[in-house]
């Protein structure tokens, strides 16, 4: 076994990196994979709270880097699914406490024991960004369908390419289908056309995400949540399954049907 290292990143902050890491990690574990999620947002740790594991932290990634514990000791096992682990970030340190080569070394050590290593990165494109990206085999770029978020995402695509890393795959988060249909929000197809990178998944805006985050039980555990379904679809795509994507909101619902009818001049 040699894990695939997947780094979840973004240009703008607050677009959903931590939510994506927690839920995709858990979805992969629900599908029987051995998964470890690493919180690389040193100084602003979140992933432990979103996963609901904050009360079980003894050691964190900075302890590992400084040799104060073994890598294994800093892993917290999630009891809800068979094989999901968290390596928490340090809360009282800054980003320079973990260097790119530290992250590479930790991942090398974990690779033989896992199927997937997910790294949740900090916002911004400075030091922490390079650390989170250093060991990545695959980069997931999260954005919201908004001008500022897409603009900053484009910058990340350029930076990643300049680092000689593979082009990121896109995740569009917090899409509101009814707003797209009214012409009030960018659609996935617009974002894709502009960024010109491969799409991995679209996650709708879903109140249950916030409820789940408050509870510390990732939304992917909710059978019927729309966002939960989107996260499970992303996990299946990562495992190589061909799960269909809805590229355009235009095509769906009664309005979409009407629009197509009008466009085709009443035919069809």
């Amino acid at each position, binding site marked *: 076994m040699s894990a695939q290292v997947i780094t979840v990143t973004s240009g703008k902050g607050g677009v959903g990196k931590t939510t994506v890491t927690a839920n995709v990690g858990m979805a992969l574990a629900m599908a029987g994979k051995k998964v470890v999620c690493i919180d690389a947002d040193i100084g602003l740790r979140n992933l432990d709270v979103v996963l609901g594991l904050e009360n079980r932290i003894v050691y964190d990634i900075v302890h590992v880097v400084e040799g104060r514990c073994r890598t294994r000791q800093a892993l917290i096992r999630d009891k809800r699914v068979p094989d999901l682990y968290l390596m928490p970030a340090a809360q009282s340190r800054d980003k320079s406490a973990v260097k790119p080569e530290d992250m590479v070394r930790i991942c090398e050590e974990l690779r033989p024991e896992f199927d997937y290593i997910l790294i949740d990165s900090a916002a911004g494109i400075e030091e922490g960004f390079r650390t989170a990206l250093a060991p990545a085999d695959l980069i997931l770029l999260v954005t919201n369908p*908004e*001008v500022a978020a*897409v*603009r900053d995402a*484009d*910058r990340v*695509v*350029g930076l990643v390419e300049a680092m000689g890393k593979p082009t990121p795959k896109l995740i569009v988060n917090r899409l509101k289908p009814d707003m*797209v249909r*009214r*012409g*009030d*929000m*960018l*659609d996935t197809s*617009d974002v894709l056309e*502009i960024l*010109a990178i491969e799409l991995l998944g679209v996650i709708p805006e879903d109140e249950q995400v916030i409820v789940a985050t408050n509870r510390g039980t990732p939304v992917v555990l909710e059978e019927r949540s729309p966002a939960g379904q989107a996260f499970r679809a992303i996990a299946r795509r990562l495992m190589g399954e061909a799960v269909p994507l809805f590229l355009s909101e235009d095509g769906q619902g009664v309005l979409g049907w009407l629009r197509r009818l009008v466009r085709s001049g009443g035919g069809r």
Partner: protein
Amino acid sequence: MNWLDRLRGQPSPRETAKQRLQVILVHDRSDLSPGLLEVIKDEIIAVLSRHVPIIAEEVRVTVTQDARECRLVADIPLGNRHSRS
């Protein structure tokens, strides 16, 4: 956006967002600001007018892109030596 705006032919917020992004990213990717393009345009006009008559007010210097590749495009209409300048 409501149906009245739509009837009036107003661009939707979605279309506006997309157009703004396209313009912003052309400049971000090429590292050419709209101001710098104006400077380049003026210099092109100055250099070329020494050699050929051009219609200065119709010169356009823009950045275009195809997927992620940018291109600087100058559109320079030539003036007729006898009728224009």
